[in-house]
């Protein structure tokens, strides 16, 4: 049981170290391929899926 736990603990430590080293994050940007180069000169021509964000956040 102790040996099994040793292997388990080592695996978890190595795994978390790998994730830490990679700077892994679950949140990923929504990947949109082939955005036209014209966006550089005309930013309004590209509309992100996060555009038109409307939300009221009132105070207390």
């Amino acid at each position, binding site marked *: 049981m102790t040996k099994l736990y040793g292997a388990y603990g080592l695996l978890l430590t190595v795994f978390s170290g790998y994730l830490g080293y990679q700077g892994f994050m679950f949140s990923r*940007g929504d990947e949109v391929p082939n955005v036209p180069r014209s966006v550089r000169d005309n930013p309004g021509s590209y509309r992100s899926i996060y555009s038109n964000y409307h939300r009221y956040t009132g105070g207390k």
Partner: protein
Amino acid sequence: MAAQRPQAKIRAFNCPNCGNSVQLRGMGTSLSAACPSCLSILDTSDERVRLLQRAAKKMERFEPKIPLGTRGKVDGKQYEVTGFQHRTIMADGVEYGWDEYVLYNPFHGFRYLTEYTGHWNDIVAVLSLPAPSDVMGHAAVSHEDRKFKLFQTSNPTTKFVLGEFPWRVKLNDTVNSKDYVDSPYSLASETDDNETTWSRAQYIPGKEIWSAFNLKGSPPTPQGVYSNQPNPYGSTKPMWAMMVVFSILLLLTMIVTSFMAAGETVFQSKYYFVSGSGEPSFVTPTFEMKGGEKNVEVEIRTDLQNDWMYLGLALINENTGTAYDFGKEISFYSGSDSDGSWTEGDKADSVSIGGVPGGKYYLRVEPDMEKTLGSELFGSKRVNYEIKVRRDVAVIWPYFVVWPFLLIPPLWAILRRYSFEGKRWAESDPSGNAAFSSGEDDEDDD
């Protein structure tokens, strides 16, 4: 010339009660014996065998699982089973019975085996007197560097005897017994009108008994948890020690990987946004992000006051045309009321995404704020903000996520261990109250 081992001499005589032949294997050490035919108990302390106790005509017979005369090795020494008795106690109105075997070796004397529902114990007499002690406030005795906690007080009664005994055994004789436990050992004191004797027991698996005495078949399967049965789950200390080691390793790994993360600021600039002032989106100059797939953090600092803004962000690879869309809302409100001053939200915040390949990127930014009539007409709503893009920032969340998983096995192990101990001590009756209880709820009728 080699010394000859003494051969066990079998002495035989006729039972003074029924006339049946009775054999003695104890080489003159037995003080009493039971006639195998009429079960009467005979005084065998000298040549003149006398009747000590005539057995009841209708007496329940118990068959020893190890037949009398069987020889086997216990503790590396050869013993012969010379006696057998069945004893009982009452607890909560229920009678519990167990078997005891007398083992004899002419060089090493007597030792005993007990069996209760498949649980076996090897018992020897204790020569030094145990000293009174306590274990965390519970009554106990100490003996040979071990502390034995009081487990049970009972009044065992002899119900059936067979073979011979080194004491004057009598049917229905009752003694006061106290059992003290320190698994896999236990100490027992038995007190009658004349004396108190102490014995030490060691739990022994049934299969070892079967092997030692070369018995046929298999031993009875143990039922429940016995008082001095070793905890099969062992100590959890090694696991906890490993848990500490792994925690330190995690901490060290976290520190090392945090230092290894570049956390390089690849872009930083200040902007302002006036709500309702036309097309809000713009792009930043190109910046380079080195390395393979790494994370990116966009930090936003504003001077918002009782307002919110939203930044639609797209990190666009100049060469491949691949965009990574994300966004961040920032809000900050403050004021005071009857409860005092308050704030809500923050003027600065950040958003991170992972898995962004290296390359040349620019950021498309699309700010947004709540549109009011004033801002629509006069464009009076303005917020100043700063954007900072950092590449390969340190992440520490994996270590905090993993750590609880390290806790699970030792917690589970300790739970199993204490569950077993709970079952053991659930059967405990240190005061001996159960012996006097009928097992029914005692309610006084007024």
